[in-house]
């Protein structure tokens, strides 16, 4: 039954060498290996985390940019609209003013014309009256001399008066 009888010497050496192995490998191999492994794993995880964060930031940035762009477009439209409105208003005001001015001008002209007309009419009246008086005077002066000549003379004067 040698096979299943543990021998003292082998137990002793196995214990000595195995414990030595656990100690030596534990201190000089497993510890540095495991810490290197976990360090590397951590750095990989960090890198992945960083990439993810950067991607998120990029997306955020892009969204911000898009929003700013959209805002700028809206603002531009608003400014343009306002400018157009202002221009329209200005044009309308100018038109209005011009129309009023023209109207006033026409009114003034019309007024001046009426005054002129009135002056001319009154002057004509005065002239007519004066001519009528002169004719009457001349008629009265020549009345008895020649009836036919008188008539021709009145017609002559009337002719003159018309030309006047």
């Amino acid at each position: 039954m040698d096979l299943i009888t543990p021998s003292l010497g082998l137990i002793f050496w196995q214990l000595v060498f195995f414990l030595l192995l656990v100690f030596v490998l534990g201190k000089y191999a497993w510890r540095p290996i495991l810490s290197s492994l976990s360090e590397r794993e951590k750095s990989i995880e960090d890198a992945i985390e960083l990439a993810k964060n950067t991607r998120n930031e990029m997306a955020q940035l892009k969204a911000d940019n898009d929003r700013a762009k959209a805002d700028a477009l809206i603002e531009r439209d608003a400014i343009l609209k306002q400018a157009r409105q202002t221009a329209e208003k200005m044009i309308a005001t100018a038109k209005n003013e011009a129309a009023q001015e023209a109207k006033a001008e026409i009114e003034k002209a019309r007024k001046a014309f009426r005054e002129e007309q009135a002056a001319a009419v009154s002057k004509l009246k005065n002239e007519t009256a004066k001519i009528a008086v002169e004719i009457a005077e001349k008629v009265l002066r020549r009345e008895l001399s020649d009836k036919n000549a008188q008539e021709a003379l009145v017609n002559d004067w009337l002719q003159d008066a018309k030309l006047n």
Partner: protein
Amino acid sequence: MSRNRSYKALAISILTLVFSVFSSPATFAQHEHEGHAEATHSHGEAEEFNPGQTILHHVADEHQWHLATIGESHLAIPLPVILYTPTRGVHVYSSKEFYHGSGEHDGFTLHHEHFTSEDGSTVYDFSITKNVASLIISVILLITIFFAVRNGYAKRQGKAPKGIQSAMEPFVIFIRDEVAKNYIGEKHYRRFLPYLLTVFFFIWINNLLGLLPGAANVTGNIAVTLTLAVLTFIIVNFNGRKTYWTHIFAMPGVPKWMLIVMTPVEIVGMMMKPFSLMVRLFANVTAGHIILLSLLSLIFIFKSAALSVIVGPFTVFMTMIELLVAVLQAYIFTVLTASYIGAAVEEHHHDDHH
């Protein structure tokens, strides 16, 4: 999940244990019969080929490293014999002195790889036997390999692994994540990693070395597996917490009077765990060696070289299986150790599971 896995591992180990137990008695019996066969064998006298004795000779430990027998002469590496007797103290010899003639030298006699003293006092044998020599070789190999791996990490800080470093890294990570972290838990696993990693690689490399022709059978030696199992037992019980001990001495949810039955059962269970570790590894590795040697012995039993056409490929096939068994047994030993430690350091209470 982990519970399920440990059941599976347990089932595998029970199966292997059953197989190895069935395969063993015949060979043991044969060995008992042989009596003085070994002495005659070592003299190289022409005799009937005895497969049982040859196989056991190859599987067992010896005080020299016997490589081959060529005709009458033996090709063997002599190893130091270290003996201690209470009466004579420590003596160191070369094993050469004991492997000729009657095996007697300076008052010590080597018979059947056992030393007896002339004066009848007990001999404590601390010789560097074939297994111890192989053990030392494996220790040197492991230290060389893992120092190279460590240097790889120092050289390529934070970079991708290369060479032997990348060959070993998956196994180290596997033991760390799938075995230690999985069975012991995030909180405690770090403390036990050096032991688990060393156990795994020690068993694996010794299993592999054992498959080499002319090599020793270290992990198939009961003394080696006994030592490893006892270390696991010590680690488990020194780290046992309240939950672990109450499950042994005061099983929760069991009537008080039942504890009279339950506690001895639990204590036996506590002892059975390392015992099963010891037997499983020993039996698996030894059984593998016996199968391989038995296959090869067929050629000599039938004295027919033609048989090697069939036996050869089958031996290659079995060796492939042994390569798998080499890593599998290392893994099983490590996983079971981790699960025992996990049960010992477990802190939270399951009220529901009994």
